[in-house]
């Protein structure tokens, strides 16, 4: 144990550890059948039954989730400290402590512990008060299998921290705890978790449509084609909905008969269908990354995936980088329903199911949003600026034909003012103008008729209270918050609210909805969260009051004052106005545009 026990124990000793480890797991009666099915598959046949056999099979093939906690440390001088735990190729870190000799972190992380995988954890403690870099002050190594099987009444152990330049010098002590989660609990908790994510009406059960979204996101075309059959199989009591227990049973039974989950809905990784338990472990950890049930940050994915992948999952605009594979992903594509005012029909708009689930995981959980707070806000701005530079380059023009092909059903090139060859960069195409007259302005000569400001998906409410009731769930939303500090909101208290949401394929210029004079134009700096309904519908996310935006006040004879707020979003954060303060404007006039950038 500790620094001295850095080599792996002998094989027979390890087996003994594993037996003791399994005894630490609390396996209860009604879960036995499911556990047996899981392990029977791994062994090819399922000879034997009962608890003793289960323990034997499970111990031989053990894979589980260890919950490791870095509690506190005693160092020899005062500083601001952080600690890291590394296992195999994964590293996770705590937050930075106060300036003290005795840092307290109470940070925990779930780690996958496999029989033939790494189980030697290295814990490193860094001082952080230097601007240029963090310095490694002490470290220790812990054999987690040995730790977990040690007879001890204490909930934690204290380990000596050694100087990295000399293992004989002790520089401090660290308190660590570690426990193992029952694989059955892991499986149940996973079922509970995915149910909560696709349970749109939050009734604790899955309706047929919610169930279908889940099956689609699992990426299995065969399963998607027989979702009705699967739903009936899951709905054992025939009440028309699938409960958490029913879902857990279906996942266990079906995965054995015919694998249901073939790709992770969060990270998109193709899963090894024959390895049921590791599939559940993977999904549990991946979902936990999103909802942040642990405090330590890091990645179940590779570092690159963790730093890059999550950011792209924060926005539907990820399609701009992935449209060659994104929505064409078939069974993982989900959709949202929109009412087309022109045709008076409901239409489906496709969106990648993985993006939907990832955004729900992040934007609709309090701790998921805390993840965003940890530096991702800056990353969203940085990635948007980078995307702006890329889309302004001559090279980006080659993406235009692919984009047009991808959105061919939703893009009418006949309306565009110039031919495709005219556009020298992708951004130029993105802010394309339309031919005169292709967007007729309703009642042009009647300034008492307001018109739509953008090609968009619209939500309209008589008053703010209705908008909060039906759509905007951010707890901090207010008219004053939307308009910013420089605009007096008393004119707009309890006013009517109209939201125009632009999608990637849309014409990205916005127009004046009412005739009048521009009284003010105010820049409000802010973040670049997605403005997708998933974020707008999250009570933890306040995109309209926290995102970067430009607020203009239009004075009109017919409507009094009208506030026009252009809000930037991830990737598309650049807002340009073509009018200035004091300009007279006529409804239908071009007012400005959104483009790629920060």
């Amino acid at each position, binding site marked *: 144990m500790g620094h001295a026990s850095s080599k792996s124990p002998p094989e027979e000793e390890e087996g003994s550890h594993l037996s003791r480890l399994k005894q630490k797991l609390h396996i209860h009666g009604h879960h036995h059948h499911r556990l047996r099915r899981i392990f029977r598959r791994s062994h090819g046949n399922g000879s034997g039954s009962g608890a003793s056999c289960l323990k034997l099979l499970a111990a031989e093939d053990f894979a589980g989730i260890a919950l490791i906690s870095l509690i506190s440390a005693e160092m020899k001088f005062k500083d601001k400290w952080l600690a890291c735990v590394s296992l195999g190729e994964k590293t996770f870190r705590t937050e930075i402590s106060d300036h003290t000799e005795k840092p307290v972190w109470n940070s925990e992380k779930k780690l996958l512990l496999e029989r033939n995988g790494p189980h030697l954890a290295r814990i490193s403690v860094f001082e952080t008060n230097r601007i240029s870099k963090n310095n490694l002050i002490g470290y220790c190594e812990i054999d987690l299998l040995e730790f977990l099987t040690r007879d001890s009444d204490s909930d934690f152990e204290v380990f000596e921290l050694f100087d990295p330049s000399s293992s004989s010098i002790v520089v401090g002590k660290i308190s660590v705890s570690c426990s193992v989660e029952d694989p059955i609990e892991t499986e149940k908790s996973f079922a509970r978790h995915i149910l909560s994510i696709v349970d749109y009406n939050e009734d604790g059960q899955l309706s047929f449509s919610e169930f279908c979204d889940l099956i689609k996101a699992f990426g299995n075309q065969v399963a998607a084609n027989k979702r009705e059959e699967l739903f009936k199989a899951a709905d054992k009591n025939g009440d028309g909905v699938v409960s958490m227990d029913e879902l857990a049973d279906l996942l266990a039974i079906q995965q054995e008969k015919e694998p249901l989950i073939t790709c992770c809905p969060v990270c998109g990784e193709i899963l090894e269908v024959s390895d049921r338990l590791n599939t559940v472990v993977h999904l549990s950890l991946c979902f936990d990354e999103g909802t942040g049930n642990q405090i330590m940050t890091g990645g179940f994915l590779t570092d690159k995936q963790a730093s890059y992948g999550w950011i792209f999952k924060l926005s539907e605009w990820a399609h701009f980088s992935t449209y060659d594979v994104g929505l064409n992903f078939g069974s993982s594509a989900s959709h949202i329903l929109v009412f087309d005012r022109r045709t008076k029909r409901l239409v489906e708009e496709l969106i990648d199911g993985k993006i939907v689930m990832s955004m729900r995981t992040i934007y609709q959980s309090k701790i998921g949003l805390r993840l965003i707070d940890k530096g991702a806000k800056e990353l969203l701005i940085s990635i948007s600026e980078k995307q702006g530079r890329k889309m302004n380059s001559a090279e980006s023009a080659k993406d235009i034909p692919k984009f047009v092909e991808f959105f061919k059903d939703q893009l009418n090139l006949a309306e565009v003012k110039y031919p495709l060859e005219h556009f020298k960069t992708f951004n130029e195409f993105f802010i394309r103008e339309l031919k005169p007259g292709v967007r007729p302005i309703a009642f042009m000569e009647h300034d008492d008729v307001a018109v739509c400001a953008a090609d*968009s998906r619209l939500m309209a409410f008589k008053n703010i209270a209705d908008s909060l009731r039906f759509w905007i769930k951010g707890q901090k939303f207010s008219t004053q918050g939307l308009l910013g500090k420089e605009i007096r909101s008393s004119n707009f208290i309890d006013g009517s609210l109209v939201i125009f949401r632009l999608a990637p394929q849309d014409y990205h210029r916005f127009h004046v909805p009412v005739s009048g004079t521009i009284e003010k134009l105010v820049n409000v700096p802010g973040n670049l969260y997605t403005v997708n309904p998933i974020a707008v519908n999250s009570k933890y996310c306040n995109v309209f009051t926290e995102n970067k935006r430009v607020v203009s006040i239009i004075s009109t004879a017919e409507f009094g004052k009208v506030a026009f707020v252009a809000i930037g979003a991830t990737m598309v954060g650049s807002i340009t106005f073509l009018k200035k303060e004091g300009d007279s404007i006529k409804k239908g006039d071009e007012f400005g545009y959104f483009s790629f950038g920060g």
Partner: protein
Amino acid sequence: STVICVFEKGAIQIDEDLLANSSRSLETLVSVGMKLGIATRKQSKTDL
């Protein structure tokens, strides 16, 4: 990206179909220039 317009209280009578869809939390696909609503502050001169 998104544009939000805020009108003064009672200044606009938004078209009923847009309000009805929104009250079902259903977005309406619209184009630039489509009618949004009519002013209520003064007696509207427009016979719609």
